[in-house]
C-alpha cells in the first residue's frame, strides 16, 4: 500500500469514526460538530488526491456555510435524548460493512486526473489557514456554549 492509499484510508476511517460519533452522541450540538469534522475529512480525501478546488468548495460552501448554520440550529434545539438506537440494526450493518471491507480493501485507487483545475494550487497554504481558522471558530463556539451553560 503506497503513501496516498494509506492517507486516503486514514482519512476515510477518521470520517467514518466521526460519523459514528455523530450517530452515538445524545446531544444535537455535538452531533453537528462531529458531522462537520467528518465533512472536513471528506474534503481531506479530495485534498490528498490534489483536487484543491473541490476542497475549497466543500469547506467554504458546505462546511463553512451550511455546516455552521446546522451547528447553530443544533445548539438552539439541543436535546439530551434525541436518538433511539435499535440494536436489531447493528447485526445487518456489521454484516454489510464486513462484506464491503472484504470486497474493497484490496482495490487500488484509480488514477485521478486534475488537469485544468490548478487555479488553487498556489493558494494551498491559504486553504490550510482557512481550515485552521474554521476549527478555531468551532472550538470557540464550544467554549462560549459551555460558559453560557446551554
Amino acid at each position, binding site marked *: 500500500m503506497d503513501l496516498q*492509499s494509506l492517507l*486516503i*484510508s486514514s482519512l*476515510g476511517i477518521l*470520517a*467514518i469514526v466521526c*460519523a459514528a460519533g*455523530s*450517530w452515538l452522541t445524545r446531544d*444535537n450540538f455535538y*452531533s*453537528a460538530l462531529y*458531522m462537520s469534522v*467528518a*465533512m472536513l475529512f*471528506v474534503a481531506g*480525501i*479530495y485534498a490528498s*488526491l490534489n*483536487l484543491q*478546488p*473541490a476542497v475549497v*468548495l*466543500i469547506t467554504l*460552501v*458546505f462546511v463553512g*456555510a*451550511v*455546516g455552521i*448554520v*446546522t451547528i447553530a*440550529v*443544533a445548539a438552539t*434545539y439541543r*436535546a439530551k*435524548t*434525541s*436518538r*433511539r*438506537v*435499535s440494536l436489531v*440494526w447493528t447485526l445487518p*450493518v456489521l454484516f*454489510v*460493512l464486513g462484506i*464491503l*471491507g472484504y*470486497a*474493497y*480493501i484490496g*482495490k487500488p*485507487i*484509480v*488514477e*485521478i*486526473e*486534475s*488537469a*485544468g*483545475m490548478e487555479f488553487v494550487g498556489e493558494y494551498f497554504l491559504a486553504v490550510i489557514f482557512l481550515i485552521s481558522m474554521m476549527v478555531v471558530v468551532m472550538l470557540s463556539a464550544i467554549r462560549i456554549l459551555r460558559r453560557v451553560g446551554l
Partner: protein
Amino acid sequence: MIIAIAICLLIIAYLIAISARDLVRLLISLELMFSAVFLAIIPLFSISAQIAFAVLVITIFTSSAELLVLITAIVITDRLRKGVEIEKASVGGDTV
C-alpha cells in the same frame, strides 16, 4: 476503497435517520448522506476532470440550497407546532 468509505458513511447516515427523534438529527443525517455523495463523485475524476468538477459544483450548490431550505422549514415547524420532534411533523394527514 473510496466507494467503500462512501457506502459506510451512507449506512451511518441512514442509521442516524432511522434513530432520529427530532428534525435536527434528520438534517444532520442528510448532510452526511451528501458527504457520501461527494465521495462517490471522486471516481468520475478519473474519466474527465472537467465534467466531474461541474457535477461536483452542481451537487454542492443544490444540496446546500436544499439543506438551507430544510433549516428554514425546521424553524417554521418550531414556530407553528412548538417543537421539532419527529412526532410533530406530518404530511397529508400521515404521521411521519
